[in-house]
Structures are given as structure tokens and as C-alpha cells.
């Protein structure tokens, strides 16, 4: 199926621009706050569409290297979580620490990039 246009990222940008530059200045109190939160959520969705594909592939490779077998990213991640919980992998294992650090940095790059530089 050919991709519809404008692309999702462009639609989200247009929605955010309307909310921020036209709607927000007319609001105060509860609705201004809720609109601010809505803008933040839409921006996170836009960044997720842009970044998550490449992140997930790299995450899958790291997980496969740590666990020693292939699989999809969600299944491998649950397996790693179970291994940590069971004490089957040391929590100071350098490969584990590097993986967790990168995964958190990836998620923050989507959800709240400012947190990475605080």
C-alpha cells in the first residue's frame, strides 16, 4: 500500500503547532496544563515514530549477544528481566550495565530528551 501523505510525523507537528501557538495562549489553569501535557505526549509519539525502529533493532542485537540466542526484542527483553530477577546474571555484569544504560538513554530520547543532560 502506498504511504498516505502527509506523513504521520508531519500531521503530529501540525497538531502540536496548533495546540502550542494558537490554543494554549487562550487557556489558563486546568486546560492550559492539560494541553501542555498533550503537547508533550504528541511530541513523544513523533520521536517514537522517528527513532524506535533503529533503536529496537540495536536493542535486539544487544539482547541476543547477552542471552546467546536470537528472538524478537520483546521476548528477549522479558527473558533478560527474568534472568536478572533469578540471579542468573550478575547485576554488575559490564555487558548488562551497558545494555541497560543504552536502553534507558533510548527511551529518554523519545520520552524526555532533556533528562539526559540534567
Amino acid at each position, binding site marked *: 500500500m502506498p504511504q498516505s501523505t502527509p506523513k504521520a510525523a508531519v500531521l503530529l507537528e501540525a497538531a502540536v503547532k496548533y495546540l502550542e501557538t494558537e490554543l494554549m495562549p487562550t487557556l489558563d489553569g486546568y486546560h492550559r496544563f492539560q494541553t501542555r501535557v498533550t503537547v508533550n505526549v504528541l511530541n513523544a509519539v513523533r520521536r517514537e515514530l522517528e527513532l524506535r525502529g533503529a533503536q529496537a533493532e540495536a536493542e535486539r542485537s544487544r539482547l541476543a549477544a547477552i542471552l546467546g540466542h536470537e528472538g524478537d526484542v520483546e521476548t528477549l527483553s522479558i527473558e*533478560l528481566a527474568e534472568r*536478572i530477577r533469578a540471579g542468573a546474571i550478575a547485576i554488575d555484569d559490564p555487558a548488562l*550495565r551497558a545494555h541497560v544504560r543504552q536502553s534507558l538513554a533510548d527511551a*529518554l530520547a523519545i520520552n*524526555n530528551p532533556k533528562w539526559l543532560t*540534567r
Partner: protein
Amino acid sequence: MSSEDFASRLQAAIARHVERPGTIHDLQRLTGGANKTTWSFDADVAGTRGQFILQLASPRADDEANPLAGVSPHLTADEDARLMIAAVKAGVPAPHVRAILKPDDALGPGYVTERVAGETLATRILRDGRFAQARAAMAKQCGAILAAIHRIPVAEVPFLMKLTPAQHVAAQRRIVEYLGFHSPALELGLKWAEDHAPRNARHTVVHGDFRAGNFIVGEDGIRCVLDWEIGQSGDPMQDLGWVCVKTWRFGGKQPVGGFGTREDLFAAYEKESGHSVDPAHVRFWEAYGSVRWAIGCLSMGTRGTEEVGIERCAIGRRVEEPLWDFLNLIEGRD
């Protein structure tokens, strides 16, 4: 209940528990949280006009069908009020309770306290020039206030949930299990907390949510400590660590609430309590505090979204912030 009914029931309650006539003025709803609703009002009592706060527990707050009820501390409105009464008696600047509502009041469970003037918004306290002197004094005040909280006799508040550090971590583990969340980062945090939970800690009353945002602050510093509803008994160092958790610095640079130094906090605590503070012990609670807050974000953000709205959904996306802070802290990168 109509707003007229509500105001007249409140007036009757004030007349009964505080003073006659109890005529209500300026009744305003301040916040409506998941667990309680807060109202501000004035009332005519014995020839003067008093300023009050009303807290009403939401009907679902003490829901016995909640599968996590009893897993982690949560006080009923009555217990919350009784803990604040014990705190005031021990010299803590806590809200002065004037009435604990009874079934006859027909308002539901709740209580009335005297209203304290001041600012609670942490970002304003951290940035506004008029709080400069307050900020300089607040870390020492936190130390002295915590020493007073930890002096409250546990026997006066026997309803508090007792949790050793290991039991505290185990309760958070149960919440994560219930939520069915499998994240390597969160599991790393929980496992680290299980491995490092202090043994042989003292056992005292613990506020449980002692942090910027729960203080009423004036130009003179902290006037009142709010939000006692997750009060518990356990390791007192929990409170010293929680006030340092990075989330509660609200972007401020200083480790204690964004406004002060650990040295000031610990020195004042040692002076007022007579107990020495081991910074490494407090650091456990600061690091584990970030894990605990990640679990808080998770449980707020994953309750039915149609019921909670956009704000709660957005909180679910904040799980990684405290986990990132946790990892930096245990790796010495904070």
C-alpha cells in the same frame, strides 16, 4: 450531594467539633487526587474567623477489593489525622487537626486542619527571589524536623505498617509482579535494592513522603510538613534519602530537595537526634528511592487509561527518568 447540602453539613460539623456557629465562607476545592480531595474554607468560630483545610478520602481509597491493599502503607483518614496529632505533640510542624469527621457528619471519612499560609509549589520555592533566605535554611530545618518525626513514640501510633528495609523492597517487588511489568532496568534496580537493603537499622516512625512539594514554605523557611498518608514505621534513614532523590530536586542543583547540602541535613539531624548518620546508608535509600518512584510512575501510568486521562498516561512515560538517575547514582556518575 448539592453544594448547599455540602456546605451546611460542613458547618454542622465545624459547630459540633470546633466551635459554634461554624458559618462557612470561601469554600474552594483545591485538588482532587486519586486518594483524597482537598478543600479550603474559612469559618466563624467563637467570634473569630478561622482558616481551615478539609481533606476527604475518596470512597475508593480504602477499597478492600484492591488486590494491592495492605501491600504498601496507606493510612485511613482517621489514622492520618491521629499521626499528625502525635507529630504536633512531638514538636513537628505538622497540620493542627481540629476535627476528625464521624459517620454522623455525613461527609464521609476525613478531617479538618488549620490552614497554614505559604507556598507549596517546589519550582517556585526554588526559583523565586523572596525564598532565598528560606532556601539557605531549609536543609538544616529538614534535619531538625526529621529528628522530631523520628522521636514520635511508635506506641502512640500502633496502626502504622511496620516494614524493615528488606520488607519495604519486597512490597515494591509485589507491586511490580502484580503489574506484570518486565523491564531489565527495573529488575536491575530491584535486585540491587534486595542485595543492598540495610540490616540492623533503627526502627522509628517514618513520614514516607518527606520531600519538596509536601512542605508549606514561607520566607522564613518550612512552616508545615504535609501529606502523612503513607506514614509507616521502619528505618528512619528512609526519610533522609527520599528528600535527596533527584526527582524531588525539581531541576535544582543542590542534592537536598534542590535547595541544600547533605552536610547541612546530616549535621542538623545528628545534633537534634543524637544519632550519627552514615552517608552510605542514606545513599541506599536515595538510590532505592528512585527505583520506588519508577514503580510509582508505572502503577499510576498503567491503570485503565480511559479512567485516568492524559496526565496519568504521561506519567507512565516517566519511568525511565528515575531509573536513569538510579543507574548514574550506583555508578558514581551523579
